């Protein structure tokens, strides 16, 4: 017959063992900043014509939610050919993260799409090509027509390969939006 003190001894012993087991596995943990997700806060459009550059920004430095984003209004001259370059940044970090470089590196799975409304507002053509000869849209040209107002939708379509098979086909259809913003445009 087990004595009472024997039982208490076993109880204390197993409690001790369990406590040790429990605390051994408890150490201070940390999640590295590098493990955290990417954030696009800023899209900058640079229109260059005749040596002078105008920049327009869509900026949401605190990411989704929080403060409402600030969006510059685009103002362009009629019947003018502009060189249009785009910059994609993460301004929540110091130093500022440059996502354009990453898009350039993986140009086979990215496509910028510029859609003016009404479509007569300006004409966009791609000025760069990926390895498969599809446009990328980091550099291109925008030619304005007659004076008017409207919108310019800028999309970055992310079209990663599926099981090693490329999905980018030069059209916006595959993939999903990483950027989808509208600028107000005045041509005058």
């Amino acid at each position: 017959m087990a004595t009472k003190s024997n039982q208490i001894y076993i109880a204390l012993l197993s409690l001790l063992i369990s406590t040790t087991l429990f605390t051994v596995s408890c150490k201070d943990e940390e999640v590295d900043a590098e493990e955290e997700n990417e954030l696009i806060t800023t899209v900058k459009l640079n229109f260059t014509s005749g040596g002078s550059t105008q920049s327009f920004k869509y900026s949401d430095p605190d990411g989704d939610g929080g403060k409402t984003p600030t969006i510059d209004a685009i103002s362009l001259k009629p019947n003018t050919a502009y060189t249009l370059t785009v910059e994609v940044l993460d301004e929540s970090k110091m130093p500022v993260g440059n996502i354009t470089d990453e898009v350039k590196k993986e140009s086979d799975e990215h496509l910028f799409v510029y859609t003016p409304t009404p479509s007569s507002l300006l004409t966009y053509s791609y000025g760069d090509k990926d390895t498969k000869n599809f446009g990328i849209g980091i550099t291109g040209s925008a030619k304005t027509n007659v004076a008017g107002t409207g919108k310019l939708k800028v999309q970055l379509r992310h079209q990663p390969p599926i099981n090693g098979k490329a999905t980018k086909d030069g059209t916006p259809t595959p993939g999903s939006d990483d950027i989808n913003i509208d600028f107000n445009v005045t041509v005058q």
Partner: protein
Amino acid sequence: MKRKVFQYIILFLAPLLWAGGASAQDCDCFIQGIVQDDATKQPIFGAIVLIKELNKGVSTDAKGFYRISNICQGKYTVIGRIVGYEEKSYTISLEHGAEQNIKLSETEHHLANIDIKAQKIENLTQTKNTLQNATLDQTRGQSLGEALKQISGVTTLQSGSSIAKPVIHGMHSNRVLIMNNGVRQEGQQWGSEHAPEIDPFVAKKITVLKGASGVRFGSDAIAGVIMLEPDTLPDSTILKGEINSIYFTNGRQTVNSGIIEGGFNNSNAKKITKIPYSIGYRVQGTYKRGGDISTPQYRLANTGIEEINYSLSANYKRKNWISDMFFSQFNTKIAVFLGSHIGNVSDLIEAIRRGSPLAIYIPETFTYDIGRPYQDVHHNLLKIKNVIKNRNGVLSLTLGRQYDYRKEIDILRGDRNLIQLFKLTTYSSELIYEHKPILKLLTGSIGINSLYQENLTTGTITEPRSSTVLIPNFKNFTSGVFLIERIVRNNWEIESGFRYDIRHLNVYRIPRGGQNVVNNTQNNQNFSGTLGANYRPNAKWNFMANASSAWRAATVNELYSDGVHHGAASFERGNENLVPEVTLNLSFTANYVSKNFQAELHLYNNYINNFIFLSPTGRPALTIRGAFPEFLYTQTDSRFQGFDLNGIVQIIKHLSLNSKISYLKAQDLNNNQPLIQIPANRWENTLRYDWKKTSVSLTNLYVAKQNRIPKKIIFSDIPSSEIVFSEYGGDFAPPPAAYSLWSASASQQFAINTKQTLNISLTISNLFNTTYRDYLNRFRYFADEIGRNAAFRAKYSF
């Protein structure tokens, strides 16, 4: 012979006295014995022992003794039952052949002496349904959620076909508590695309307790409790095991799981002075691998799964003492269908408009490869339990530690980007004292539970570094004390209990756009109660009525979400001012059992005050990725009412029909409209043919269209000019049409020798390759459900 799992031990003392032969019409046989509590060895007074075939029963006297006399020769099923204990039935033969010449005198009888050792069950005034043995074997290889669909009233919330969460009476996630081997599962259950981090092969018995169970299990047990229990460990010198192999044609999935268990004791020791003890152990492991699954029309890209799990358990038993240790690890990698990756609401609307996924998302070639996006989940559980018995009762202490690691990897640029990372560590303890009957009338238990957890998603716990996480860092402490008492009489039981809980939540976060860490605290406390009765007027009927309450404090995602929920294409905002929701659950169950007919009707009415849910505002939320419909966490008073009806009719010998109906109506009482995302009503019929060790069945499942959906935006302070998304009450598409699915199954058992058995079965689900979509599958917007799937199962026990 294989021991019946997880039921109480029956000590069958074979007929002690056969008093020779008798004439063919001899009806002087009798059966007698003692009914006693398996744990305490106390005789049970008032237990009913009956012979099923004759519907003849007696109840035990104060010494637990019973005797049924004047029985004719024959084969009988003897049932021992009392409220508060599990029922046990077994077969006994009261027949003889050879000695017919001997004349039986009046004092000689055919006699069987049977002592029944019954094991107490936790609750008998609430409805519970169990999967074990053959019904559990039939689900082997499936996820926990899929397996539980067998139980009426339980459905699933799915993200594709590999992620399934159990839904009880229309509620899921934080409202369904899962007790894994006696420890409450603490994973990332808040997320609708987070399946329970559990390997169902660990369990030999899965029980679903329907209805609020806040008193015994603490907060969150609003809709019900799912209990997974392994087999008891061996306590004699033995080595045995089981191997399960399953192959699913759809996705070419293989599942292999094995168990080896053994034990030894010193009962053979020569020295009498030695204290008897026994040791038992078990090693269990599962490996699962599947590739892209197919719908009737097309294959879905990136829908594979890989899972490696194992568990180790051991115990040490001596006279009044049991020490039990359990460790399990669950690791899974689940591919998420590529076509479900949604950039913003226009991507989603485009996907819905297309009807079926783009050609690139439905490849011709099959692969096992898991590409982005995918989920990478690990869950560890360590449990240590000690039980001490003495004259006055049983004291048990259960300690648990869980670590849950979840990585959700999206298809972002570069290889280093993760979308979300969660690390949740939980420590839990439970101390329970079960006292012996007071005044031979009142039995019950008193207990205290505590739980401490830490969630880490960014930086260190108290110093988060990023404001863009979905769930902030937090520390959570809850504790509760409870008392449950019951009075048990011959054929009725009354059970009552109450509980008091406190909860302290500390959140460390950087608000959007802020630079500094904000520390928010939430303190909640609550009383819960339960009152129930069970009445068993005779051997055929059993009635249960129960009123129970439970509560749940708002979780961190409900309080502080602020961002885009990818895949759901919604912008979700938490609400810091949410108060705990409290439920009052009224239920009534009638159960009828006779030789050729069994039926159970479960009626429920579940009021939830301050029910927390995500409701659309109809406004677009503007982000750099485009516009997302905005959803806010809000509260309303709600009512879930419905019934589950389950009936089995023995049509002719060997042939039976099982019919299950689940009906549910969930209403938002403040806004006077249905609640969103409630499972549709369903009716399932199975025709089953059993002959010896062979069984064949054919099943039809009919799922109605969910016509009860919200129609209006409930936020009255939002001007209608801002409402853009309101077409389907905030949903993106109307609920899918009703569907009817057929499945067929055949199984055969082989006895290799006395110890070894082999069970093989073939089940074909979605027999006619029907194309359908389910309202509670989040992928219903983009893709059809899984097509025909044949499962080959083999189970070898030794």
